[in-house]
């Protein structure tokens, strides 16, 4: 039996488990039916070890279930970043890490791989062959820590200076400190915040300055996929990937041109907006459904598609470019007491996404919008439950569904049935 190890080689498997624990905290061991029980136990133990007190457990009739529960406002740093800091390494990796940094720190003239192998042997009593040392030097050069130069036939390596190095930093102390304050903010507020958290780790800094509301920490798990997509976008390349439908659990391979990342600030969900050349349409795919991104050839018409998206995106309420007709209209009349409830009116304005708002008479406002898909707007419309005087639109089915929903809610909450209804 192999010994348990907190560290992992492959991020993809744990990504799925963490999502399950975080999003669907009600699952039991038996619900993770795709893997063996041992695999589940190891992954659960790993996640418990990484996330400590954020992991909770409860017992149900079907057994113990594990879940991650946290109010985003209470955490100084996304605890799921722990997953990014768990890549396994060998003894040689960590030994050479500290030895090479130690030996090159005070050596502006640089050293060759052979010099370093000899010094490691004489100073620390460990023997490494030149090739092993050379590979680590090259790896750290690629990471951006070392630089190399040739002198005669010999290749020398030098450690690059740190931003606040005692040997002379590359930034003034004030600027470095100001930048670190910014990092405490952006490590949660910017894409790839995990990278910021590694800067704070190395600077021995923690975030005490900021708290984050409407903050969805689980999406850090998609950053690997996001990175691959952004690289393709930068290089204007087509991509293919596997998309797994969350509803049907079916997987399919999709090929298209990646143009934009759509982000919902209200749910944290992120989507890839892809142009599909075959059906000649835009389609959004959830990043958490995407795996195995492959870069394909450069797309010659990238700019053309990008411009086409820009022309269309204002008519997209959310992420859907669908709709029963090309463009759908929606009119909603709301009752708002503008004197007593100016905040409701403000809400209407700030959430209108380009729709028009017209005051009809005192306490009555008309919202009108032209979007691809009325269905996407219905959740928002329902937030005005108790204020909707009238609603009409070109997508009669969607409007009908909304009216039925409101009526179902009326019956749901224990209200008298059989009331005579007029027309809306």
């Amino acid at each position, binding site marked *: 039996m192999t010994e348990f190890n907190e560290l992992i080689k492959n991020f993809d498997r744990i990504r799925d488990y963490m999502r399950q624990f975080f999003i669907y905290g009600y699952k039991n061991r038996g619900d993770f039916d795709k893997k063996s029980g041992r695999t589940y136990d190891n992954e659960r133990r790993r996640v418990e070890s990484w996330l400590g007190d954020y992991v909770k457990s409860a017992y149900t009739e079907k057994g113990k279930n594990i879940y991650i529960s946290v109010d985003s406002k209470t955490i100084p740093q996304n605890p799921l970043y722990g997953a990014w800091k768990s890549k396994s390494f060998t003894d040689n990796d960590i030994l050479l890490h500290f030895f090479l940094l130690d030996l090159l720190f005070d050596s502006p003239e640089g050293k060759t791989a052979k010099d370093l192998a000899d010094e490691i042997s004489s100073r620390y*009593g460990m023997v490494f062959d030149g090739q092993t040392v050379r590979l680590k030097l090259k790896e750290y050069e690629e990471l951006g820590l070392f630089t190399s130069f040739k002198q005669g036939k010999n290749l020398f390596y030098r450690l690059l200076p740190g931003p606040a190095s005692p040997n002379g930093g590359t930034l003034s102390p004030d600027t470095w400190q100001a930048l670190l304050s910014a990092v405490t*903010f952006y490590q949660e*507020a910017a894409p*790839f915040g995990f990278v910021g958290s590694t800067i704070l780790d*190395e600077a021995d800094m923690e975030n005490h300055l900021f708290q984050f509301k409407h903050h969805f920490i689980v999406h850090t798990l998609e950053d690997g996929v996001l990175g691959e997509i952004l690289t393709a976008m930068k290089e204007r390349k087509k991509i293919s990937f596997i998309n797994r439908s969350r509803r049907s659990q079916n997987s399919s391979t999709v090929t298209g041109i990646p143009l934009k990342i759509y982000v919902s600030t209200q749910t944290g969900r992120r989507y890839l907006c892809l142009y599909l050349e075959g059906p000649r349409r835009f389609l959004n795919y959830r990043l958490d459904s995407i795996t195995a991104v492959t870069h394909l050839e450069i797309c010659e018409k990238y700019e053309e598609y990008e411009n086409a998206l820009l022309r269309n995106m204002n008519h997209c309420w959310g992420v859907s470019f669908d709709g029963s007709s090309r463009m759908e209209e929606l009119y909603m009349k709301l009752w708002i007491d503008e004197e007593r409830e100016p905040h409701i009116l403000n809400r209407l304005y700030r959430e209108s996404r380009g729709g028009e708002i017209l005051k009809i008479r005192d306490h009555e406002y008309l919202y009108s919008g032209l979007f691809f898909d009325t269905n996407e707007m219905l959740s928002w419309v329902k937030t005005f439950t108790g204020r909707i005087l009238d609603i009409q639109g070109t997508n009669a089915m969607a409007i009908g569904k909304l009216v039925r*929903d409101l009526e179902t809610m009326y019956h749901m909450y224990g209200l008298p049935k059989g009331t005579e209804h007029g027309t809306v």
Partner: protein
Amino acid sequence: MELFEKYYNCYYQVVRHILMEAETSPVTEKRMRELSERYGYQESALAIVPKLSDGTWPFLTPSGCTALTHPDALKPGALPLTKLQKSWLSALLEDPRIRLFLTEEQYKEAALWLSGTEPLFSRDNFHFFDAYEDKDPYEDAEYQKRFHIILDALQSRKALIIAYENRKGESSVREAAPCQLQYSSRDGKFRLCCLERSGKQFSKHAILNLGRILACHPSHEKVSETAALRSFPPVRRCEEPVVLEIGGERNSLERCMLHFANYEKRTRYQEETRTWICSLYYDTADETELLIEILSFGPVIRVLGPDSFLEQIRARVIRQHELFYKPI
């Protein structure tokens, strides 16, 4: 650039901290375990401490002191940033909010330092389709100035004199000890969590919208250690959670779990009704917001309690029914 990279492994940070302590005094195994727990994971000590103690990783002398010759290399900021880290920082310079942290000179210095580093991402790569339209004016010089003053007061634990305009447009002056800055990406707003002066003490909890702060400057008073340490509770947790019943139709379970993922919650499956019961704990300051969010789901989730919350839902639903069907 690879994100999942062993260089960022937290075990390296654990060993770095152990070696930093070992520079000045011998480090015991007990202390190594404490540092492993602090900078690593819960079980990291089991993997790290034996290797340091038995010499597999010969970074320590038998007495527990560092065996490395340049301990300065381990100090914060001593080592260079990786290409990935610099590339991430370079992307931040494109964001208008960076000016809230850096002065013009600092910005220029940082830009020069990062010149030649390609940004990891660009703002144009993203479209925040449902962000609110009345976000704070990050690019306004006066707003930036006020933000700098507040951030400085927060870091140096100074009280602030603040001229503030409330929702009704009335302005007043108050003195407050800053505790934290709250940020919402949905609203695009910063809010100052602070303790306002009440009598001789800073004790009254307040959340001030930075966009409504008309002017501010640091007061002469340094915030006492006790007041500063008594950190602003980020959440005034409700006494009873809102309990939701989720049937699962129209993908409601998945939607609910994602939508309420930022709340502390507990979900369980109820065999007899074949529904999921989700208990949501929320900040009492955000009750109306949660109410609206729940309404947005319509009938695919049902509020079971508490009664006070249920009553608010019921009132809105009845009112809606009346607006549609009651003769005027």
